[in-house]
């Protein structure tokens, strides 16, 4: 009896390394370590990390072409055109495509999907705001009628709110999706969802793009919340991508054999918005002085560890429409001192406050650096770190708002107007314009740019660039960092190219 128990224990112990070996990705399987579980499965609702799954399961009519000559390339639509006034967009659809549930893809499914998302008003559905209605011209032609001109080709390439899904499935409602169901046209379909553990995707045999031997047959999106665990997993090859490697682990990971660390530019940027309505930052000279009191290169080098570049104005440098000719502001305390003197505000009244998300070490360090620099020129800065919900609530109301407010922004679809409209266009009731900035001329330029985006992109760019110039002149923010993405992957994974417009396309990857 004793002997047989001993044998059993021995057998179990011996089998352990074997089970362990099976854990990592194989030739056919790729493992992605995600920092959270899939939240919103409904493609009309999703607006955060779900893109890891969504962009492989669902497809959009057009695909944003980050590195191409044109802005967009065909997706589920093969070609498109717009009327002269930019109000009617006609999309010609791909033939012979089927959803995962067998429903054929055609014009009425496009109409259904876009209208459902718009009507539900969830997630980033507001990017569809310009749409009046959709009409089915014939089985493979759909027309989008707009209330006001908008770049429908770009909007419908968005990583959120623009997915086309099977109406047969979607009529079962959000509840059905939330059980881990999906019905798109993408290369992968959902195989299983073990809540809070993993999502498994398997190859869609009928994918219109076709399959070859290199493609992964299976994708495992594994929930790994602990940063140190993700680091261990990428080192040992248990994971092919780690989404949560902390900054201080990067030097070691770079040296680790088999691991590759990429830091391509993203479309995220960080700024400290300066309140233009609140004393004393309602004074332009004080706002300019704050810009000069910011140590740009130290912040990027030491606080962001090189994972950012110094920003130039409100729009990131690597997205279309950025104005490359904006005047540069450098760290210059003498100049800041001089501007403060010119403002006419006595130093005794120069007490400023700065709010930021306290869990961000970067914000905290930036705030402390600014505080130290300002104290050298006799300006007091009070730091107010807190949870986003609280500081946001305070910042929306001028009475309770701080003089400086942390802000990190990214576009809901690939357009420069997201920063301009979201952060700097006049808002009657502030939502994200937390500078409480209002300049009617800037508003007019932004509106002009939005209107021309779909009709004459050069004219649109010209308007946006002018608007950026005027915003920089008014100094409603310290524009300090265009952020880099942090991609940690196994070297053996080939075919990867970072695309700030989307998450990751597993279909394009293969293992060497």
């Amino acid at each position, binding site marked *: 009896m004793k002997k047989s128990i001993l044998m059993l224990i021995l057998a179990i112990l011996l*089998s352990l390394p074997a089970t362990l070996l099976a854990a990592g990705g194989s030739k056919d399987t790729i493992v992605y370590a995600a920092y959270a579980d899939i939240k919103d499965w409904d493609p009309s609702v999703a607006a955060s990390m779900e893109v890891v799954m969504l962009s492989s399961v669902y497809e959009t009519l057009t695909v944003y072409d980050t590195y191409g000559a044109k802005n967009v390339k065909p997706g589920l639509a093969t070609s498109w055109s717009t009327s002269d006034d930019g109000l009617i967009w006609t999309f010609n659809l791909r033939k012979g495509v089927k959803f995962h549930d067998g429903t054929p893809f055609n014009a009425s499914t496009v109409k259904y999907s876009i209208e459902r998302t718009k009507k539900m008003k969830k997630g980033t559905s507001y990017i569809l705001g310009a749409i009046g209605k959709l009409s089915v011209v014939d089985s493979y032609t759909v027309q989008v009628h707009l209330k006001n001109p908008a770049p429908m080709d770009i909007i419908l390439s968005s990583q959120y709110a623009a997915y086309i899904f099977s109406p047969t499935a979607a009529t079962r409602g959000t509840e059905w999706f939330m059980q881990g169901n999906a019905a798109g046209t993408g290369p992968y379909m959902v195989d*299983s969802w*073990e809540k809070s*553990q993993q999502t498994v995707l398997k190859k869609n045999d009928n994918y219109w793009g076709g399959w070859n031997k290199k493609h992964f047959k299976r994708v495992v999106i594994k929930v*790994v919340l602990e940063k140190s665990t993700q680091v261990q997993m990428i080192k040992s090859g248990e994971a092919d991508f780690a989404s949560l490697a902390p900054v201080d682990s990067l030097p070691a990971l770079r040296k680790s054999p088999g691991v590759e660390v990429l830091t391509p530019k993203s479309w995220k940027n960080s700024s400290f918005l300066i309140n233009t309505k609140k004393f004393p930052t309602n004074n332009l000279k004080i706002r300019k002085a704050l810009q000069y009191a910011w140590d740009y290169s130290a912040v990027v080098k030491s606080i962001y560890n090189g994972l950012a570049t110094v920003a130039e104005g409100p729009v990131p440098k690597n997205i279309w429409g950025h104005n490359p000719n904006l005047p540069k502001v450098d760290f210059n305390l003498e100049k800041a001192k001089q501007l403060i003197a010119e403002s006419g505000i006595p130093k005794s009244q120069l007490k400023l406050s700065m709010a930021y998300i306290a869990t961000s070490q970067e914000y905290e360090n930036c705030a402390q650096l600014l505080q130290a620099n300002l104290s050298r020129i006799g300006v007091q800065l009070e730091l107010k770190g807190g949870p986003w*919900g609280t500081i946001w609530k305070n910042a929306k109301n001028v009475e309770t708002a701080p003089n400086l407010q942390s802000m990190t922004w990214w576009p809901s679809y690939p357009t420069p107007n997201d920063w301009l409209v979201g952060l700097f266009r006049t808002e009657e009731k502030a939502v994200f314009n937390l500078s409480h900035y209002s300049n009617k001329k800037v508003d007019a330029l932004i509106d002009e740019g939005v209107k021309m985006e779909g009709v004459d992109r050069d004219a649109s760019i010209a308007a946006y660039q002018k608007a950026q110039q005027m915003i920089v002149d008014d100094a409603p923010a310290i524009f300090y960092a265009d952020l880099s993405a942090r991609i940690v992957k196994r070297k053996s994974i080939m075919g990867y190219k970072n695309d700030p417009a989307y998450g990751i396309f597993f279909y394009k990857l293969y293992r060497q």
Partner: protein
Amino acid sequence: MRKYLLKRLTFMVLVLLGVSIITFVVSHVVPGSPAAMWVGPKPTQEQLDAAIKELGLDQPLWVQYFSYIGNMVQGDLGVSLRTHQKVSEELSRRWGATFELVTISMLIALVLGIPIGILSATKKDKPFDHVSRGLSISGVAMPVFWLGMILQMVFHGTLGWLPLQGRVDSTVLIDHPIEKISGFYLFDSMITGNWPIFLSTISHLVLPAFCLSFAALAVVTRMSRSSMLEVLREDYIQTSIAYGVSQRLVLFRYALKNALIPTLTVVSISYGVMLGGSFLVESIFDWPGLGRYAILSIETNDFPAIMGVTILFALTFVILNLLVDLIYFLIDPRIKTPGE
């Protein structure tokens, strides 16, 4: 007995009501913006207003509380702000993970702790006693999260014997989907004959269960040692020894039963402590249980989830206490219920 039980049950309901009120008030009073979390990262004002209405945040606090309790009685614990999943579903799914881990840890603590305690008592002030004392002190003193990481580094990083995280291996789970009956993977895989899952579950349990059991092991060892020593000094034991009754019989037949009562008390307390410890251990080992859920919910002030998990923990704790009190009667007939 019936009267006593009734009294205890009434008391339980009152405790749970108290817990629910305190948790509700605290989670609603702390600053934050639940509506902002509900809608996602870049909402419009319209979406925010709609969310406030949808979540009932425009109602006075007491109205919100009573509608919460009303729903709870019907088994509806609301929807998590963070995961957008029904809290009741998440709790019932994660329940199995946590209780499997805590129960196995408790078993380890008992199966190792009681014999070590008894041996230490019989070998008082001998080398074995010193070693077990050293282990006990380190067990109480070592922070759980530190021990967890060290275990990971040694047994996964250096030796490569045991898996790093999770409840079961991803690929094993894909190829051998588990049929969920009780939510205890060991049990479910055993009765369905799903041996790959069974083995994978064991290998995943070893590190977190040992890590979680270490502190309780120390307490159980010390407690059974000291109560054993006390019992061994009793006259009836001395008499039995004097009569030449075999040591084994004295220890395990006469002494152990009496020594177990104080140990049982610390076991019930340790179970509660372990539920608390599971917060840390589950976070370190990515264990998909209640502890990790609680941590993530508290971090984001996801109040429907916080309410649900707190009430469930409170319920478990009071039921455990009641059970232990009832077991006292079974072990020691001398303990009488009040009023009898």
